[in-house]
């Protein structure tokens, strides 16, 4: 079927960063999200509320605590790459090779 369906993808990961999603990891997360064309959202619960993962102010304002589960949703042609890259980033404790 070619109905112009927008690819959509989901992922999640547990935040094992001591101190939670503070400034530095929040910046990295935003920078990784911005590498993708897709719209990317983040939430602390499976059903939202969803926050724009490319907005550094909003991502930091989530104040995500240590061991919280971060949920990602992306919509767009590279949605799957986006959600898997973000889950990988969180799982690897923000050991992202590219500083932005």
């Amino acid at each position: 079927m070619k109905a112009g369906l927008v690819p959509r993808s989901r992922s999640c990961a547990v935040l094992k960063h001591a101190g939670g999603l503070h400034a530095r990891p929040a910046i990295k997360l935003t920078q990784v999200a911005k590498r993708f064309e897709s719209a990317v959202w983040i939430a602390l619960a499976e059903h939202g509320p969803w926050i724009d993962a490319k907005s550094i102010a909003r991502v930091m304002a989530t104040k995500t605590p240590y061991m919280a589960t971060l949920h990602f949703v992306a919509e767009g042609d590279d949605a799957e790459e986006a959600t898997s890259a973000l889950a990988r980033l969180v799982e690897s404790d923000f050991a992202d090779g590219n500083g932005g």
Partner: protein
Amino acid sequence: MGKNVGIVIVSHSPDVAKGAADMVRQMVGAHVPLAWCGGNPAGGLGTSVEAIVKALELAWSDAGVVIMVDMGGAETNSEMAIEMMPEKRRAKIVVCNGPVVEGAVMAATESSSGAALERVRRAAEELYSR
């Protein structure tokens, strides 16, 4: 380096300006042109048009430059510094109405992804607009 929007930090205190610049460098990385200035020519607290002009030249990017200012004279002197820049560059410089430290980090985060001048300015001002 030339394609990302530059950030200039202007504070009355050179320690504040340098500290904010250190935070940007360490948290966001080295992909954003960055310069800071603070203090008056006599070595006290204040800002200097000449120093701001120099910082604008250091952090210059063809994508433009945002200036983060702390208060009062930092803003008026920044506007005077913009007037002293070549005419072609003036339209690509904006003074941001945001918190100087957090705003600089957020503007730089936005800039590091290659965002345009207006988006970088919005990121820097987002904390005050909510």
